[in-house]
């Protein structure tokens, strides 16, 4: 007989190791589709590892890929902690990016010391605005934020395409639907010469640390956690639930907006409608893998970026599809969810005792 029992207190080490074990298991499971694709498995893993850690360039590429994932991962983690299901980071990312190109391409031609903070601020505000709307619908009409944030993604993407064909279109762009380039002083400095990794990464790391402290140590974070864990007890205790949720929504939206800003002014330098290959959605996986801990988001983002970059180079070298990366990421999420179950419950196998008649 198999029974599910509540695990009352699972050790910290155990909880900590679950995401790591899940990540490793998902990588091991990746051998199955690799074998189906006819690749030499040992070689494939080697190429993958080299593609991520083999050179400074490879490492820089991985960190570049991790940067937006840290922002969107934080956006999801903060919101999910308060049980506010923001699925709209993708749209908020583009809102932030649009704000960046609206300001950074020549409207304000001022020194970088002023321009950069202004761009970042407006990017955050734009992202936050993208979350305030669903929040207002939620508190006013009780509309489920999962639906509204998700659907807003498509509205925003179409709005973006309209803007790139219209007001934001680069007049020198030979008709391509892309924005004018960001002014030189509006770009974030890169961290290494001739490498793509940029200081958006530093901003992301600092924000993760700050958020970690705020969620665990501040009154704001306390309220956020109370609202997330038991909204009716929080309301009963006089915590302004709607105000708390609005704060969380703004914070989450701003972080997602920042992901867009960082991609535009750190990496690309201009905006197209394919700026993000789903960073907003992947951020959800990052946050779940991180157990909704801001510091954990850093590790999870690095892992997922490694998988993507590694699988890219593997597909180039071995001729297997790079969709394998998506598969590994998906499997790691499933492994974490199973791991989360295992950390809270345990399965026990019991033999039924034979009843004897005395």
């Amino acid at each position: 007989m198999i029974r599910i029992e509540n695990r009352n207190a699972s050790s910290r080490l155990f909880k900590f190791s679950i995401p790591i074990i899940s990540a490793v298991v998902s990588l091991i499971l990746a051998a199955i589709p690799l074998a189906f694709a006819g690749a030499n498995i040992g070689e494939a893993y080697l190429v993958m590892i080299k593609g991520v850690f083999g050179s400074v360039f490879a490492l820089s590429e991985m960190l570049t890929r991790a940067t937006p994932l840290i922002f969107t991962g934080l956006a999801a983690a903060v919101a999910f902690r308060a049980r506010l299901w923001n699925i709209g980071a993708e749209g908020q990312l583009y809102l932030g990016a649009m704000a960046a190109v609206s300001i950074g391409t020549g409207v304000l031609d001022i020194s970088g010391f002023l321009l950069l903070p202004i761009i970042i601020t407006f990017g955050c505000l734009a992202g936050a605005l993208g979350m305030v709307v669903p929040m207002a619908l939620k508190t006013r009409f009780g509309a489920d934020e999962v639906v509204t944030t998700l659907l807003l993604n498509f509205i925003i993407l179409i709005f973006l395409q309209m803007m790139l064909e219209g007001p934001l279109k680069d007049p020198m762009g030979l008709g391509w639907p892309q924005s004018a380039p960001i002014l030189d002083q509006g770009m974030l400095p890169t961290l290494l010469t001739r490498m793509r990794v940029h200081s958006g990464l530093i901003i992301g790391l600092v924000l993760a640390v700050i958020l970690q402290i705020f969620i665990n140590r501040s009154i704001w974070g306390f309220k956020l956690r109370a609202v997330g864990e038991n909204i009716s007890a929080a309301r009963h205790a006089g915590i302004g639930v709607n105000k708390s949720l609005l704060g969380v929504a703004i914070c989450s939206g701003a972080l997602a907006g920042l992901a867009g800003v960082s991609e535009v002014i750190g990496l690309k330098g201009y905006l197209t409608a394919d700026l993000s290959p789903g960073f907003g959605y992947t951020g959800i996986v990052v946050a779940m893998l991180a157990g909704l801990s801001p510091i954990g988001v850093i590790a999870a983002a690095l892992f997922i970026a490694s998988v993507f970059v590694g699988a890219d180079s593997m597909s180039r070298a071995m001729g297997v599809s790079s969709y394998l990366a998506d598969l590994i990421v998906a499997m790691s999420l499933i492994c974490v969810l199973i791991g989360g179950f295992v950390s809270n419950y345990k399965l026990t196998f019991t033999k039924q005792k034979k009843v004897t008649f005395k």
Partner: protein
Amino acid sequence: MNLLAQSNQMSAQKVLSLRSLSKKFGSVVANDDVSLDLHVGEILSLLGENGAGKTTLMNMLFGHYLPDEGEILITNKNNQMEPLRLGQPQAAILAGIGMVHQHFTLAENLTVFENITIGVESLWALKTNKKKAQKKIENIIERSGLVVALDEPVGRLSVGERQRVEILKALYRDARVLVLDEPTAVLTPKEADVLFDNVKAMTDNGLSVIFISHKLREVLEFSDRIVILRHGQKVGEMLTKDADEKSIAKMMVGESTPISKRVEIQVGKPLLSLENISMKGSSRRNRLVDISLKVHEHEILGIAGVSGNGQSTLAELISGLQKPDQGEVVLGTSKVKKLTPKVVVKAGIGRIPEDRHKDGIVGNMTVAENIILESLSEKSIQRFGFLNRASINSIARDLCSSYDVRGPGIHAHARLLSGGNIQKMILARVFSGNPKIILANQPTRGLDMGAASEVERRLLEARRNGSGILLISEDLDEILRLSDRVLVIHSGVLTEIENLDREQIGLMMAGETL
């Protein structure tokens, strides 16, 4: 003489025998070597505090839990004792064990008849043999006196009627042993008396009953024999005629709990007034009709009533969770424009919520965090918007020791505490704020005697110190023990009681106007 009583006991025929049952959950011993016998036509009371192991024992009997050790014997059709297959509810039902849970397991949109017969007929039967079933049920009703209209949907029945349906369900499955888990918890005194009459009639027909209860009065009045559990062990067994209230209470709690004495105090100024409050609500449960009440300093105002007559709505109103359609709330002498939970907390209204898991605690936050949940804006808790951990921990530690909150420590999640300790933690939070007004909604529901008397002691102490207390409770004894004045609520209407007469209040709770 003792021997004689025992031999008398032996002569009655056994129907069920639990032998040395033990059950552990992790490191917690829920039942430790418990044995008991049940005789034909007997009413056996199973008494014990919360967490004493009554429910675990019955769940093993009914096959919900698998015992770690021990066995259960039950008579078969040929009147021979036979071991019961353990851990299988189906086997228990076939052997003739019926269980009426505290929370009913009925389908509201089906009729009484359908609820009784559901699950008995074979899935492959092409048509139900309705006539035969109907006849059988009518026969049972006639013998037991459990009168219910068979074609009424269960959703339209009162609580007492629903309970009858549950019992009929068990009897329809040819139960010879009926387990009643706190059957009177949801009933008015009058309904309870009817239930007892019915059960007595059934036992005369050979049914054996195990009756689980907290309420000593009922147990003494109603049962033939009493078995007392404490900390999972059987600590006492006696014939009811040899038992007295004091000795049983002592066995249940292990030591004598001093019952707090209420002293007469002159009441002071009014602290909280509700003036002509009305709420439309969608049903009887959440309607209030032109309610007025005043709570004064040094006063406990008791609100008696069967649950589901507007108490929850009244409590939510005072907690600021609902706005009245009409009427006014006055705190002290000033009218409150908009009562929100925040205003309520600021005004120093301490609340012991009815559903402590839903409204009282955040289960996945620590005990320390739960204790400071309502005092986030205080200087000792926060510094520049950040939590003052050292100060919070020392506050929590002090309160846990002075309110005797036992558990894995102040840094453990609150959900890991037992029900009684959760309530003590809530008491610590409420009383440490020195509230002027206290709203205590079913404060002792589901608590064992030790924890319940602690709650009562704290309420009386607060009254002595000048607080005004609004006590909402289903437990009439508790209301009569604590209150200075009593109001009865029925269908959202409040009626003041002039002389505190048990019978009269019971009748009013059942909705009779006097």
